[in-house]
């Protein structure tokens, strides 16, 4: 079942920040994304569920412009990503944060330098007091102010995830794309990260797409959910709607809860 048309027609009065239509992506002839259609509205958080290796990360990497889709249209803030100039792409990326699955903290830099890096490059802020103020603010948001001078290798997996989230937040993005934010973490830390994502959404009023197969994270953070299977979204709705879906494959996904 392809629920393309339903997803496209999802009604909301708020502004559309991401619009994807008939997006396709193949790798070496292998179908990864077949016909992806979705709309993300300002302030809303969509959780994309699906098995590992099914193309969830490819989808958000297409949105941020790290991967070029083969076909279809993909608009962020009303502009087609593939038609953006390098400057427009950079401008877009300052408004769209990306939390990497493996955190991707620069391991040759301290936490402070990791947080300074995007600030100095994108906002051209060179006043040390302003930079320090912003760093302290985001570190307080993720509850790790005392790690400011530590190296990433000195931090635990959960702490690294929080710092990566702080680095994403420091540019005050309007959208955050989370690539499996709780993968590889113990259940308690995973729940803390899920709660932190929710806190951030509320505090900074960001929209988001959360790629995950962690059902607790999905339940905590989602405004609505989409289930990806065989390159298409096969179901959409709230957490409870998905759990009671008519589609057996979708229902079976929730049996492990």
């Amino acid at each position, binding site marked *: 079942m392809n629920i393309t048309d339903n997803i496209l027609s999802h009604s909301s009065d708020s502004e559309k920040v991401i619009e994807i239509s008939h997006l396709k992506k193949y*790798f*070496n002839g292998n179908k990864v994304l077949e016909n992806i259609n979705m709309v993300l509205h300002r302030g809303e958080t969509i959780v994309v569920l699906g098995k590992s290796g099914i193309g969830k990360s*490819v989808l958000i*990497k297409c949105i941020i412009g790290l991967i070029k889709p083969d076909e279809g249209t993909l608009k962020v803030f009303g502009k087609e990503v593939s038609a953006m100039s390098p400057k427009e792409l950079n401008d877009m*990326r*300052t408004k769209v944060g990306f939390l990497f699955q*493996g955190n991707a*903290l*620069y391991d*040759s830099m301290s936490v402070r330098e990791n947080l300074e890096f995007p600030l100095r490059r994108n906002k051209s802020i060179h006043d040390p007091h302003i930079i320090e103020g912003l760093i302290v603010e985001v570190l307080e948001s993720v509850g790790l102010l005392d790690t400011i001078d530590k190296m990433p290798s000195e931090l635990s997996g959960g702490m690294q995830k929080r710092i990566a989230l702080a680095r994403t937040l420091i540019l005050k993005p309007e959208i955050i794309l989370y690539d499996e934010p709780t993968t590889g973490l113990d259940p308690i830390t995973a729940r803390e990260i899920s709660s932190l994502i929710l806190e951030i959404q509320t505090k900074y009023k960001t929209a988001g797409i959360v790629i995950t197969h962690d059902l607790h994270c999905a339940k905590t953070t989602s405004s609505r959910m989409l289930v990806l299977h065989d390159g298409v979204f096969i179901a959409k709705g709230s957490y409870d709607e998905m759990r009671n879906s008519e589609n057996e494959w979708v229902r079976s996904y929730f049996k492990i809860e």
Partner: protein
Amino acid sequence: MYLRFNNKMRLNIKKIFRKNKSNEKVPYTGSNWFDNLLSEIGGLSHFTALFFKELFRPPYEHREFMRQAYKIGLSTLPLIGITAFIMGLVLTLQSKPVMAEFGAESWLPGMVSVSIVREIGPVITALICAGKIGSGIGAELGSMRVTEQIDAMEVSGTNPMNYLVVTRVLATTFMIPILVFYADAVSFVGSYIAVNLQGFTSLPLFVNLAFDPLHYADLIPATIKTFFFGFAIGIIGTYKGYYSSNGTEGVGRAANSAVVISSLVIFIMDLIAVQLAEIFNIFY
């Protein structure tokens, strides 16, 4: 054959790279060594062209360039120093009996200095740097690639080609000649000590004997080729690291092949440099 030329004899760049299963951009690997060789040459040429394209495009990363130059220079100084000292010492000790046999002991400092300045200093220093710096760059960038740090940099509004590649290649290009001068100087010290291990030669006399046979014809081509050695070490190290794939195994392979390929390229470049200097004879 993956490197195709169309009617206008232009390289078909799309055929040089492919995406692997993990969606990493990697050079094509052919079914035999010849295909692989052509793919490597094509990939490296394309990467070099990208380097020159980014070289003149702002923003210019002065601070990162200085940091890399400082790191590369400082980290290699002790290794180069010890190797160069032993090189000067051993070369002198080994040559001394032969020179003595011909009654030409007074030519020993001159012979050693010409050998070091023209050939041994640049090549040995470049090979050491290929091993230390080339493998370091390959492993560092490779590890950044597989841990998505390069992607994170791109998403943070920084051009990784500009920030990571251009700065490192420029740093090696300008630091290797300086390291070669340093190696030459330390070798002279080693040679002076070796000369004085049996017998006595005063420092002014040694300097006079060592520098007398040296001409610009020895120094200039030797210095010019060190810039090319440095460029080769930087570009090959960054190329192997930048397109590293397949996790930690790929990082190891990137570091290893950076050393192997740059060492080979250094010898080929040296051969070409010697031939060109002979053919044009411009500095004599």
